[in-house]
């Protein structure tokens, strides 16, 4: 299958010979809402992530990004709305939905008292990975972790821990991959390396990715489409290459700052 990429124009990748309309979305979020008491954390948002598409979820601290990710992962119940991973509604078919999902987040490191191999084996069993030893070996090679297989995760550097988390996140070849600031606190070389590996995974497995980051250069580099969140709402969305100019800004970073400072001046487009 040949992949045609032109995110500047379409904002997403499509696969030659496959009608986009017949492919189930990797993620479909419909009128998702989350309240904490009287505080609205997520305010009735709807969006989707297509197969083979990388969508950036952007916004200032407290915009609701992590709340959305927690709801998609089933560890936080929405006040209302639905979340479907392919054809599985997480509220109804939690196991089926989560078997197709995985995630990596800087605030959810793997247990530091287990080795790299042990963690991958335990999580491989949790996700029901077939031919687990072979899959672990492949990921150890892919993420350059072979020499660290017997090292405890707690003693690894930030970059190494991120690579292990990503290896775990790809164990079950997820249809939906959630990445919450996967390159935070990494040096530029390691971050670039990580981005390349995620790109390879998406290209090969045609997974949908929801990616949060505060690094706008990174977002421009990897995302096919971005959603700007503010106060739990999607203010604007579009291709990162064209969106800034459409709103009179030079760069995505300028647009981010505008969203953070004057969200009311922007409306969803």
């Amino acid at each position, binding site marked *: 299958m040949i992949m045609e990429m032109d995110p500047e124009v379409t904002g997403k990748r499509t696969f030659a010979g496959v009608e986009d309309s017949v492919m189930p979305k990797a993620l479909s979020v419909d009128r998702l809402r989350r309240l904490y008491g009287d505080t609205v954390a997520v305010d009735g948002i709807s969006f989707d992530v297509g197969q083979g598409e990388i969508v950036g979820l952007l916004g200032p601290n407290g915009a609701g*990004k992590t709340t959305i990710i927690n709801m998609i992962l089933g560890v936080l119940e929405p006040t209302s709305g639905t979340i479907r991973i392919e054809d599985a509604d997480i509220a109804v078919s939690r196991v089926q939905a989560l078997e197709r999902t995985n995630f990596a987040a800087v605030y959810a490191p793997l247990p530091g008292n287990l080795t790299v191999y042990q963690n991958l084996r335990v999580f491989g069993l949790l996700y029901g990975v077939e031919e687990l030893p072979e899959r672990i070996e492949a990921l150890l090679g892919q993420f350059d972790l072979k020499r660290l297989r017997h090292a405890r995760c707690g003693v690894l550097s930030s970059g190494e821990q991120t690579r292990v988390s990503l290896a775990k996140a790809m164990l079950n070849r997820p249809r939906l991959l959630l990445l919450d600031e996967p390159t935070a606190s990494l040096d530029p070389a390691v971050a670039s390396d990580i981005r390349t590996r995620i790109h390879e995974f998406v290209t090969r497995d045609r997974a949908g990715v929801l990616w949060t980051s505060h690094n706008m250069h990174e977002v421009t580099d990897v995302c096919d489409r971005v959603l700007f969140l503010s106060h739990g709402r999607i203010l604007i969305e579009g291709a990162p290459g064209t969106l800034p100019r459409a709103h009179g800004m030079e760069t995505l970073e300028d647009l981010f700052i505008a969203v953070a400072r004057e969200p009311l001046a922007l409306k969803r487009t």
Partner: protein
Amino acid sequence: MAPFHRTAAIVLRQFYLMRGSPVRVLPIFAWVAVDIVLWGFITRYLNSVASPGFDFVPVLLGAILLWDFFTRVMHGVSMAFLEDVWSHNFLNLFASPLSIREYVGGLVLTGIATSALGLLTMVILATTVFGLSFFVYGLMLAPFLLVLFLFGIALGIFASALVLRFGPASEWIVWPIPAFLSPFAAVFYPVATLPGWMQRVSSLLPPSYVFEGMRAIVAGGAYRGTTLLFGACLAVLYILLASWCFTRIHRHAVRTGLLARYSAESAS
């Protein structure tokens, strides 16, 4: 993939932890060994000063052995849970396809393995050093252990649920629960010794039926199996209640955001 692969993952994680860390294995043997040695010498002393004919070994040392077994079962389940608290692993676990039943099943299997090791240590010490013979209890020994085992599991699940509800700072709750219960469970004295209100509490505790039965058998009297069966049914009921409690608290944690905050601050 085998049908119990997710439960196996929970057990495997605990196995890796113990294999890689002798300090985790030591308490399985150390405390029970200390108790058996201490109470072994106390019973030996009591036998030397008490009137001849009464043997304290099967009464006191047997009671200690059974009570320690119950404590090990409970702590085995709770410790496995606390390992996930300490390593901030809830988000990784509960964002996976793992169900609560599979998770609790894994904790219980871990508790079985660790308590079996503790029991083996106690039995070897008590029989070889202090001459405790399990033939004294006859065939009732197996149901005695079963009732204590079931109640230990129930309390282990319940204590874990409390920590899930009240957060990591509440882990201290786990440790003294057996000590709080021991006066009511009539480990060392007959239930009849207790005042009326304590006897009523005692009747709700499955271990009290075990220790009453143990003393009756050692004294040469009969002990009705149906009475112990009632204790076993109570223990099973408590397992069901504790599992229900854990599930409800997990559900509450998902609904309120408590579970997400165990590992990450949910933006609001």
